[in-house]
């Protein structure tokens, strides 16, 4: 049989039952659009979160106290490890590949200035912080490169803290109180917005040693190291490890590269996208059952016709492919309609809720259509085989 005739014959069967065919295609279309909408949102969120993460660059390495098993509990939580100290951070600065090294301590404190107060996040950190995290200043300068163990009482404010306390007036050079201690403002950070729900502008930066004192801590929460681009990551990691093991006597710290963080993040997000796609797949399954049903009905309705074309010389394989073809046409066209519908609805959702990131990758679109066709084949195979195996004499007797 010629391909053109094959298409014409299957097409005529589908067109002869317009409503029924339409509803069957609709079943698949709903399933495919559910998959497309859900994966578009999943993928959109995925990309959004990853871009939030990578804005700090990919040559950033985090050292945190305590040895963690992969994704597990920190053994150090039981308190036997040595804390990361300011001296550790200073030692890391001397490594050849280190571009910027900053220790970080974080906490909350009351900030008082211009006769107003605000509770905000306080970062104790060092001179290199803006370089390490690519966070530029709006005005003034960041904390100076003071003696790390005896820094002056200077502070830099986030743009939101500045606006809340000082309004439009210039706070540089003015005195504020942070957690009761007096500081002089030397700079204002440029607005950075929110990262994963954390407001980077509602912050105040003070020198690391003063932060430790303020929060009454012995060790740093983390040390971040930005290395020179082009240096192999492995070399950086082993360099840091060797140095800190020498200083601490054993490996009681954890090194996390940006890539590891992205990998973990990515695999979690992949699971979310997959789970969401699986939910959509359930509606696809329902659509597939619709095809099985309609094709089974079609075979019993057209039993006499099957007998006839066998009598006219059709082979079993031809009967099989005719009915399979019908199932695939139903699912493929349903799939295309579902793709268009799903893509449209995803875009519409994005228009209505701009905060909802949406992204429909082409590979997903092709995969969804391939899935639709595969469902058609799978759903068509049982009825089509039944049609092909009919005894022609029996079939012809069917009226």
């Amino acid at each position, binding site marked *: *049989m*010629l391909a*053109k*005739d094959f298409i014409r014959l299957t097409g005529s069967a589908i067109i002869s039952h317009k409503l029924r065919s339409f509803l069957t295609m609709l079943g698949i279309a709903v399933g495919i659009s559910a998959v497309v909408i859900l994966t578009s949102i999943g993928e959109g969120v995925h990309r959004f979160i990853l871009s939030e993460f990578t804005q700090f660059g990919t040559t950033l390495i985090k050292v945190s106290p305590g040895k963690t098993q992969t994704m597990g509990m920190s053994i150090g939580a039981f308190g036997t490890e040595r804390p990361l100290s300011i001296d550790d951070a200073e030692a890391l600065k001397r490594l050849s590949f280190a571009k910027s090294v900053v220790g970080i301590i974080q906490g909350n404190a009351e900030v008082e200035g211009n006769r107003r107060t605000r509770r905000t996040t306080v970062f104790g950190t060092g001179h290199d912080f803006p370089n390490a995290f690519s966070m530029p200043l709006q005005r003034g300068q960041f904390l100076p490169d003071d003696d790390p163990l005896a820094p002056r009482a200077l502070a830099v404010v986030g743009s939101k803290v500045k606006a809340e306390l000082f309004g439009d007036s210039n706070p540089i050079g003015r005195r504020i109180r942070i957690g009761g201690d007096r500081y002089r403002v030397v700079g204002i950070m440029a607005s950075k917005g929110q990262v994963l729900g954390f407001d980077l502008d509602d912050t105040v930066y003070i020198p690391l040693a003063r932060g430790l004192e303020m929060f009454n801590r012995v060790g740093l929460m983390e040390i971040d190291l930005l290395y020179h681009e082009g240096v192999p990551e492995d070399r950086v990691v082993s360099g840091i490890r060797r140095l800190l093991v020498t200083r601490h006597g054993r490996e009681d710290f954890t090194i996390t590269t940006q890539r590891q963080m992205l990998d973990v993040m990515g695999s979690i997000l992949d699971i979310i996208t997959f789970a969401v796609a699986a939910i959509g797949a359930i509606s696809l399954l329902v659509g597939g059952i619709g095809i099985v049903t309609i094709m089974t009905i079609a075979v019993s309705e057209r039993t006499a016709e099957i007998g*006839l074309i*066998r*009598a*006219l010389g059709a082979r079993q394989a031809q009967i099989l492919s005719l009915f399979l073809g019908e199932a695939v046409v139903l699912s493929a066209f349903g799939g295309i309609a579902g793709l268009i519908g799903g893509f449209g609805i995803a875009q519409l959702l994005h228009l209505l809720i701009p905060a909802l990131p949406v992204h429909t990758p082409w590979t997903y679109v092709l995969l969804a259509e391939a899935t639709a066709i595969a469902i058609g084949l799978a759903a068509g195979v049982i009825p089509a085989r039944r049609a092909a195996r009919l005894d022609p004499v029996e079939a012809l007797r069917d009226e």
Partner: protein
Amino acid sequence: MIRLEQIHRDFEVGDQIVHALNDINLDIAHGEYLSVMGPSGSGKSTLLNIIGILDHATSGRYFLNEQNVTDMDELAESRARNRHIGFVFQSFHLVPRLTAAQNIELPLVLAGIAPALRRQKVQQVLESLSLADRAHHTPDQLSGGQRQRVAIARATITEPSVLLADEPTGNLDQKSGSEVIVTLEALNQRGITLIVVTHDKNIADRSLRSLQMVDGRVVSDRHGR
């Protein structure tokens, strides 16, 4: 051309065995006009189905154009049906969603013949059966006699050597019935082997050879009118 040797066809119904065909031996020459008569259940349709390779004998040998049909596989059987055999049924068996012309070309479509050649053949056969003005009508827009003529056109489009008609006039009135018979006979005149199963004595009388069947056996085989 058709040679049946000791053909048996048994059906198992429950624990009973029905001998639908019981030791049939038959030779049919090229271009013969054969009618098959007999009471209901005597095995006429079963005989026709075996000759048409739609059904298989339980035992015995069948040769069609010197080829042993008993040895054929599914593919060879389908091809033989397509090329050598034309079926005409009592209930027409037209595909309702296809036009007359599309119904007629079905055997050529199944054989993968190119559209241009098909169109030419369909046109020819439509004209010779005076159906040219009905080419684009669907079966429900045709009379019974016209439907059966479309079915005959379809059965003969591949120029088969045998035309098997199982009570072709059974669903037709007197007038369209005899039109159909005249059409079949004209095809026989042009060389096709014609086998007609009928209950109609008049039709049997017109044929040059007439079989009588009873209980799966041929009880008389009359040659000549």
